[in-house]
C-alpha cells in the first residue's frame, strides 16, 4: 500500500510523466468516494489524496470531492489538472480555500516554443507560468513535473532553474515514457548515456537550491550515489481506476542477478526497442538474497518499503471463509491467502490491484482475484467450484476501503 490514494475524477488531465493528456474514459463516482471518505475518517489508510481531472466532472464536482476528502481525514489534498484551469487569481483562491494544499504542474520547456511543442497545446507555457505565479501567493506545496525528452534535454538546467524560480518545492524528473511505441515517440526517448549525466546535474542543481528532487523510471544502478532520489512508487488507485493508458512495462536482463532488482524497474520496453538492453552500461550489484521469479511485465511499486498493514481487515474481506485460509501475507502489490481443499490440494488465492487490461476470472471493486501455485490432485473445475464462493464473498465485501499498489 502507498500513502497516496489516486482518485480519477475524469480522465482528461495531463498525467505526471506524460507531457500530453491521452486519457481513456474512466472516472470515480462522487458518491462512492464520499462513502469511502466517511469510512476513511474512522480508519485512515492514506495520508494523501490526489485528485486527477480536467473535464466536465471536475468542473461539476471538483469542490465536492475536495470537501469529502477533508471530512475523510486526508491531511494532504493534491490536485492534478491543467494549468489553464488555475490562471485566474480568484479560481486559485477558491480551490485553496476549499482545502487543496498541493498542486502538481507539468513544465517541460523554458520557452513557449519548447514546452508547447511537447504538450501539443499552444499557450500552455504561458498558462503554466501564470499558474505557478498565482500558486506562489498561497501557502501550498507546488510540485513541478519535468519530462526529459531528446528535445528538452539541453534545456534541462534552465527548466529546473525556472521551476525553482517559480517556487517549486519539489521537482520530479521523469524519463520519458512513450504511451505508444511509435517512431515519433521513440525519437523523444533519451539514451541513458545522455540522460544520466543530465539528470545527475539536475539533481545537484535542485539540492543546491534546497528543493526536494525525485527521479522516476531511471535505472537505480546508474544513479549511484544519487540513487536516494529514485522514486518508482505509484499511488494506490481508488477502485483501481487510473487515467491514461495501461501502465508502462519494464524489464532488465540483469534482474535475476541484481541486488537492486526488487526496487528498480529496469528499462521501459519502448526504451529497449529504441536503444537496446544497455547490458554494457547497467551495473548490477551482487545479490545477497536468492532471487524469486516475479511477474515484471507490469510496473512495480517501491518493493523495499513493503509493509504489512491491517492484516485483520484483509481477513475480514473473506467473511465466513476466513477460516479456510492459513493467514494472509501482504506486500504493497499483493495479498496472498494460502488455502487447502479437503483432498489436500493446496493453492494460493492472490489479490492484486484491479487492472481492466489484465482481467482475471473475477474482479472486485479494487482487485483482480486469481489463484496460483496449485499443488495436489484436484482438477481445475473442482478448484474453481471450491474457490467460487470465496471469490464471490470478497467481491461482495470489497467496498473500496482496501487497496493495493499496481505492480
Amino acid at each position: 500500500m502507498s500513502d497516496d490514494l489516486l482518485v480519477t475524477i475524469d480522465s482528461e488531465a495531463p498525467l505526471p510523466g506524460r507531457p500530453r493528456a491521452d486519457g481513456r474514459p474512466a472516472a470515480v463516482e462522487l458518491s462512492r468516494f464520499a462513502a469511502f471518505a466517511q469510512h476513511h475518517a474512522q480508519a485512515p489508510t492514506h495520508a494523501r489524496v490526489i485528485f486527477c481531472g480536467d473535464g466536465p466532472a471536475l468542473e461539476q464536482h471538483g469542490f465536492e470531492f475536495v470537501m469529502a476528502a477533508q471530512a475523510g481525514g486526508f491531511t494532504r489534498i493534491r490536485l492534478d489538472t491543467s494549468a489553464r484551469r488555475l490562471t485566474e487569481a480568484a479560481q486559485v483562491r477558491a480551490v485553496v480555500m476549499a482545502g487543496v494544499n498541493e498542486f502538481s504542474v507539468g513544465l517541460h520547456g523554458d520557452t513557449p516554443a519548447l514546452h508547447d511543442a511537447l504538450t501539443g497545446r499552444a499557450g500552455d507555457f504561458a498558462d503554466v507560468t501564470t499558474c505557478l505565479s498565482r500558486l506562489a501567493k498561497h501557502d501550498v506545496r507546488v510540485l513541478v513535473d519535468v519530462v526529459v525528452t531528446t528535445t528538452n534535454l539541453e534545456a534541462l538546467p534552465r527548466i529546473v532553474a525556472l521551476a525553482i524560480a517559480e517556487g517549486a518545492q519539489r521537482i520530479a524528473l521523469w524519463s520519458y515514457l512513450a504511451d505508444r511505441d511509435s517512431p515519433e515517440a521513440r525519437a523523444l526517448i533519451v539514451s541513458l548515456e545522455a540522460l544520466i549525466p543530465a539528470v545527475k546535474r539536475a539533481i545537484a542543481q535542485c539540492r543546491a537550491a534546497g528543493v526536494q528532487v525525485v527521479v522516476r523510471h531511471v535505472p537505480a544502478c546508474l544513479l549511484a550515489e544519487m540513487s536516494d532520489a529514485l522514486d518508482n512508487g505509484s499511488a494506490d488507485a481508488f477502485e483501481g481506476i487510473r487515467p491514461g493508458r495501461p501502465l508502462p512495462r519494464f524489464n532488465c536482463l540483469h534482474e535475476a542477478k541484481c541486488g537492486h532488482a526488487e526496487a528498480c524497474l529496469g528499462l521501459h520496453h519502448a526504451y529497449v526497442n529504441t536503444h537496446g538492453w544497455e547490458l554494457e552500461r547497467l551495473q548490477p550489484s551482487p545479490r545477497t538474497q536468492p532471487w524469486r521469479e516475479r511477474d515484471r511485465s507490469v510496473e512495480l511499486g517501491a518493493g523495499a518499503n513493503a509493509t504489512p498493514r491491517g492484516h485483520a481487515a484483509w481477513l475480514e474481506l473473506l467473511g465466513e471463509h476466513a477460516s479456510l485460509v492459513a493467514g494472509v501475507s501482504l506486500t504493497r502489490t499483493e495479498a496472498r491467502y494460502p488455502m487447502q481443499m479437503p483432498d489436500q490440494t493446496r493453492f494460493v488465492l492472490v489479490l492484486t490491484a484491479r487492472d481492466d487490461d489484465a482481467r482475471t476470472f473475477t474482479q472486485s471493486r479494487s482487485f483482480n482475484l486469481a489463484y496460483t501455485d496449485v499443488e495436489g490432485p484436484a482438477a481445475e473445475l473442482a478448484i474453481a467450484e471450491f474457490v467460487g464462493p470465496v471469490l464471490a464473498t470478497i467481491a461482495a465485501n470489497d467496498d473500496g476501503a482496501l487497496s493495493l499498489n499496481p505492480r
Partner: protein
Amino acid sequence: MPASNRDRHLNVGFEAYRPVRPLADKVRGENLLWHSLLHAGQLDAWDDPLHAIQRRLGVDRSIWGVFVDLQTSELAWELRLLNDQPGAPLGVLDPLRAALRPWLELAPGLDALGPYAVLGLRFDPSTMATGRIEAIELHEREPGSPTTSVYRVTSTTRELVSSELLREPKRHINEVLPAIKTSEFVNFTAQPRLLGRVMIPELFACRRLHVAKRPTCDSLCFSGVNVEQLAFTYKRFDYPAPMLEFLTANQAALEHLLFDVAIEYREVEGRVTYPKTGYYGSF
C-alpha cells in the same frame, strides 16, 4: 471447441503447465490452428488428417505451430510429436504414417532411425497436392543436457538444421546471453542495440527460452507467454488481419493458456529482419 478439465496443457518442449485462469467459459487453443488453416484455405485439406493424428495418438499429445512468412504473409505449419515409443524401431513415425496414409506418404523409404525425443514435420499450402512429405525432423537430446540437435532426415539424407539451448531467460541469463551473442547472423558486438531487437522486451517475460542456431538464421522461442503477449506478437509482426480479428474476438476465452512464440532473425544491412515468426500450441 470449449476447454474442459480433461485438457492437458503442454508447452512446445512437451512440459505440462497449469492453466493460468479457471477453465469456465474458455476454449481450446487448437481453435487458433483450425482458424489459421481456414484463413489459408487449407482447412478442407487438413481437417481429416490432423484429426486422424489426434485420434491415433491421443488428444493433447502433440504440438502444432503456425508460421507467417513476413515477406509474403504466407502461412506454414509444423507438427511435433513426442516419441513415446522409443523402443520401437521407428518410434512414433510408425503410428504417424499409419494415421496419415489415406492422404500423404511420410518420409517414404525411410526405414531405420536412431533414438530421438521428438518428431517434427512441416507443411505448407502446396504440400497436400504432392501427396507426400519427404523429410521429417528428429529432435535428439543428450540425457541431462540443455541442448537439443534437430536433424532433417529423408530416406537418403540427414542434415543438422538446428542446435538449441533451452534455459530460463532470467535465472540463466549468464548462459542465455553468450548463446545469443555467439551469432553468425547478427553482429552484436558492432551494434549492442540489436540485442533489444531479438530479445524482444515484450516477450522477455516468459518461462523458457529456446536459443537456436540454424544454417541460414538464428532463432529464439519465447516459451510460456500469455495471450496478451501473443496478441502483441500478431501486431508486432503484422499477422494477417483476419487472424488478428479472430484472436482478439477470442482473447478472453484463451486467457488460461500459455503459448510459445518463435522468431527467426538475421541482420541485413545493420538491421534485424525476421524471415519467419510463429507460435505453438498443443492439440
